[in-house]
């Protein structure tokens, strides 16, 4: 099935899908409308739970079980990637040569790294107050660490990034979320119920379990992304198959 033979079914399928989707769009409530029944209820509940960032309240309180599912997908995807990209017996590692880095870039990198790291941690810690949380902050923390690769070199990155502990941290983050959920059961309520005192609105200690779950997710996402990038970098820069033999 090549070329034009394949084009026709594709064109027909796309045209039919387009027609259906456009018809559906025309009957959706108009863009920017004022009726958001779910949103209004979610906002009301978030304010009752004293969580200023209602998005975090939806993610880590009202729909916390849903987030557990999402997190498990993330965990499984990281696990699968680690298994697929591991070094096999017929492959070996060749350490990449250090490349000279222009001094301005080096200065910029060493300056930007701690700042970016701090921003990431801040974003995780303030998830219940301002836009942010474990998912976003975790990615920022993970990418911040990789500034070291840009600014210094690959070996410097490898020194601060032993993959083992990060793989462990990934699992610990996931486990912490599951256990925090069980705390709701112990408190005599439902799984992942927000049983902690809700605290004072718009302060660090507000939202009950939301900041704790945020921290667990932040840990998992940050270490998960570090592990993923470590394996891709390893495959692209270091691991080679046996010479002259298809691996």
């Amino acid at each position, binding site marked *: *099935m090549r070329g034009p033979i394949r084009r026709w079914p594709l064109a027909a399928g796309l045209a039919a899908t387009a027609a259906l989707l456009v018809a559906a*769009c025309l009957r959706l409530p*108009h863009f920017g409308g004022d009726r958001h029944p779910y*949103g209004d209820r979610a906002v009301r509940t978030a304010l009752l739970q004293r969580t200023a960032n209602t998005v975090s309240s939806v993610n880590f309180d009202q729909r916390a079980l849903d987030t557990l599912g999402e997190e498990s*997908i*993330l965990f499984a995807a*990281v696990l699968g990637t680690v298994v697929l990209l591991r070094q096999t017996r017929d492959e070996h590692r060749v350490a990449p040569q250090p490349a000279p880095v222009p001094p301005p870039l080096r200065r910029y990198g060493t300056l930007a790294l701690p700042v970016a790291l701090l921003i990431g941690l801040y974003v995780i810690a303030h998830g219940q107050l*301002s836009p942010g949380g474990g998912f976003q902050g975790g*990615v920022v923390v993970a990418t911040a660490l990789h500034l070291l690769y840009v600014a210094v070199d690959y070996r410097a990155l490898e020194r601060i990034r032993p993959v083992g502990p990060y793989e462990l941290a990934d699992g610990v983050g996931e486990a912490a979320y599951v256990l925090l959920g069980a705390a709701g059961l112990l408190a005599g309520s439902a799984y992942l119920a927000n049983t902690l005192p809700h605290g004072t609105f718009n302060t660090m200690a507000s939202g009950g379990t939301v900041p704790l779950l945020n921290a667990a997710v932040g840990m998992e996402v940050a270490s998960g992304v570090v592990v*993923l990038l470590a394996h891709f970098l390893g495959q692209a820069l270091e691991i080679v198959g046996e010479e002259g033999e298809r691996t």
Partner: protein
Amino acid sequence: MTVLPYLVAVWIFLIGVYGMATSRNLVHAVGCLAVTQSSTYVLLLAVGYRRGATAPVFSDIPVGTPVVDPVVQALALTDVVVGATVTALLLALVVQTDKRHGTVDPDELTELKG
């Protein structure tokens, strides 16, 4: 303007699917999947938008201010990050395919299976 955002989401979805179906390189196909995926975010956030409202964060606005729908934002937000890890899994599969078969062209792979 009443349906334009929805139509943009539809367009992104269709162009992504077209790119995937006509792709001659699995790495490229995974990239197109990422494009297709982003259409869902545009659609979700467009559905939740409320004209003249602000972001659903009450740390610096008085309670009672009209805000946009936080539910769809929560859905999109987690998927952005989870989607990236699934992309990583697919790319790992591509690397494995390349190791096993020495090609990442879907057509050549079909011929190999014969």
